[in-house]
């Protein structure tokens, strides 16, 4: 039986629903020896800012049971390097590229969107308003509905590309942020970014990470992320990209059943550079085994069967 794995996210046609989560595969090239990038639904590159950013002092990563905590601090070469060097090199991989952007002011987001508009090789923009490692005036943009709306609206005004807002779980009610993003013109939502977290080095009796706080990801956050997708699916009619602790196709299915039309694999790439391809292959095999003709039939299916 022929199964259909293609999905449509706000006009963006993906051959399958599996993406890479921003920041976990860099700009993709390092993964090419282990992962057939053309087999991905899309590659979401590391968040880019207007100017190059050095990022936070080391150590930048540590672990906790079933999770990792990173405090990279958006180290990136800046938008001009992306346009001049990186995007042209990515073309050969034959994978839709989603560019993640972040700024320190709503104006910076707007300028980034404008700069990237019309640049060849970009399939969509993901607006990172949720990085716990960089903050404007002490808080992430995506923890406040008015700021979320402001940033999304300014990006929307400056680009013809599909706009995906990436939401933070570090909020009281993620639905209010999702509604704000939808109202401001987002075409889709990514959820979730990492949870604010920290680890203390008991030997040295001080915070372990150079930045004190970091963002928690990996299997430890999966139930939180699935809950967020479930809630937002009920509140907002936009297509959702679910992520948080996906290691296997089974994990991805949880997100799809909760309402995600696509999923992104993040931390699993660090553990196994072939993880995203294995998740995609596993989903396909599941559909075949279950006799399901189209993966879209599963999107949000858990809502219809009770709960």
């Amino acid at each position, binding site marked *: 039986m022929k199964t259909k794995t293609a999905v449509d996210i706000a006009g963006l046609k993906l051959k399958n629903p599996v993406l890479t989560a921003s*920041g*976990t595969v860099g700009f993709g090239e390092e993964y090419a020896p282990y992962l057939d990038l053309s087999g991905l639904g899309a590659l979401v590159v590391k968040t880019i800012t207007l100017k190059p950013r050095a990022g936070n002092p*080391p150590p930048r*990563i540590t672990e906790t049971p079933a999770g990792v905590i*990173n405090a990279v601090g958006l180290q990136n070469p800046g938008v001009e390097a992306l346009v001049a060097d990186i995007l042209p090199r990515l073309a050969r991989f034959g994978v839709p590229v989603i560019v993640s952007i972040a700024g320190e002011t709503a104006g910076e987001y707007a300028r980034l969107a404008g700069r990237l508009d019309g640049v060849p090789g970009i399939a969509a923009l993901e607006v990172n308003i949720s990085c716990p490692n960089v903050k404007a005036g002490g808080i992430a943009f995506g923890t406040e509905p008015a700021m979320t709306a402001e940033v999304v609206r300014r990006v929307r005004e400056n680009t013809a590309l599909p706009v995906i807002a990436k939401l933070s779980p570090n909020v009281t009610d993620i639905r209010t942020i999702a509604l704000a993003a939808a109202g401001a013109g987002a075409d889709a939502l990514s959820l979730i970014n990492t949870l604010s977290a920290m680890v203390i080095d008991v030997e040295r009796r001080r915070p372990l990470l150079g930045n004190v706080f970091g963002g928690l990801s990996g299997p430890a956050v999966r139930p939180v992320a699935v809950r967020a997708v479930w809630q937002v699916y009920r509140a907002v009619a936009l297509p959702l990209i679910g992520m948080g602790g996906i290691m296997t196709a089974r994990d991805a299915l949880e997100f799809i059943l909760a309402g995600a039309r696509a999923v992104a694999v993040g931390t699993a790439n660090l*553990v196994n550079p*072939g993880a995203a391809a294995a998740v995609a292959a596993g989903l396909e095999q599941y559909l075949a*085994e279950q006799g399901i003709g189209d993966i879209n039939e599963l999107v949000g299916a858990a809502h219809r069967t009770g709960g």
Partner: protein
Amino acid sequence: MTYITDAKVVSHRRVAAGCRRLVLAAPDIAQAVKPGQFLHVRCDGGTRAGHPRGAPTSVGRIGLGWVGSADPLLRRPLSVHDADRERGTVTILYRVVGRGTGLLAEKRTGERVNVLGPLGRGFEPPGHPRQSGHPCQPGHPRQWVGHRRVAIVGGGLGVVPLFFLARELSVGVPPGIQPANAGTPGHSGVPRRAVAVFQGARTAAELDVVDFSILPVDLFTATDDGSRGHAGSVVELFLDTVCHEPVDWVSAAGPPGMLRALAGALETLGLSGEFSLEERMGCGIGACVCCSCRIGTPERWEYRRVCADGPVFPAREVVWE
């Protein structure tokens, strides 16, 4: 070329209190690896999850299906201690310090360990036979080109990757060659081997973890407690020694304090060299920028990736905190 593979444990032995030597069958890695490179090792539950192609699928075990344990999640960077290209094995030598190495220590002969590697840029001392275009093949007679005398300086378990380097640099080199600088003012005049190893440790027992005396090198040892060799730091010993037996290059690895002191010594002597650094890693392949260290000058530095730009960096470019 790097590989991801479920390597079979050929042997796994305790070599000293809290230290273990693990020999893995990994022919591709054994062929490709250079001294100073490392493996990214899944310490638990990694065997099936590590397969890029995924495990057999069925309902309930989908795609990657069974991931084994998700704790610890991250791989552990461990230097290659030695490689036997003929037998197709790589050896790592590690100290059991925490959760990952603790679980690794339980692997028995015949079990499998998922490893990714070889990773990183290794040691590149100038005058290395490899750089003369001479094939580094087993059984091939080495020619020592350049006739340079390389000092290898290691502290604690930093000597792990240095053993591989010392072996590659010294094997096949005729004993007692006159280095290019023999006869220069201050040289002792004694024919010396092409490789001088300076090994420092806290105690004699710690020195025994890696035995350089089985290699054709000149060996100088130092212990903090004076239980063997020079009593004091290996950097002091290095300075005292090279004043009358000059060397041309220094390849070093060890705790940050030692490397920092050595950097000062190299500056005093006007010597060049290279240091192997450590930092906490995520991916190990250069994508996540988690493993950054400062490279440049104290005034102008940038973060570089230990896993992909290093772990070996030019000594004078390392910017200490």
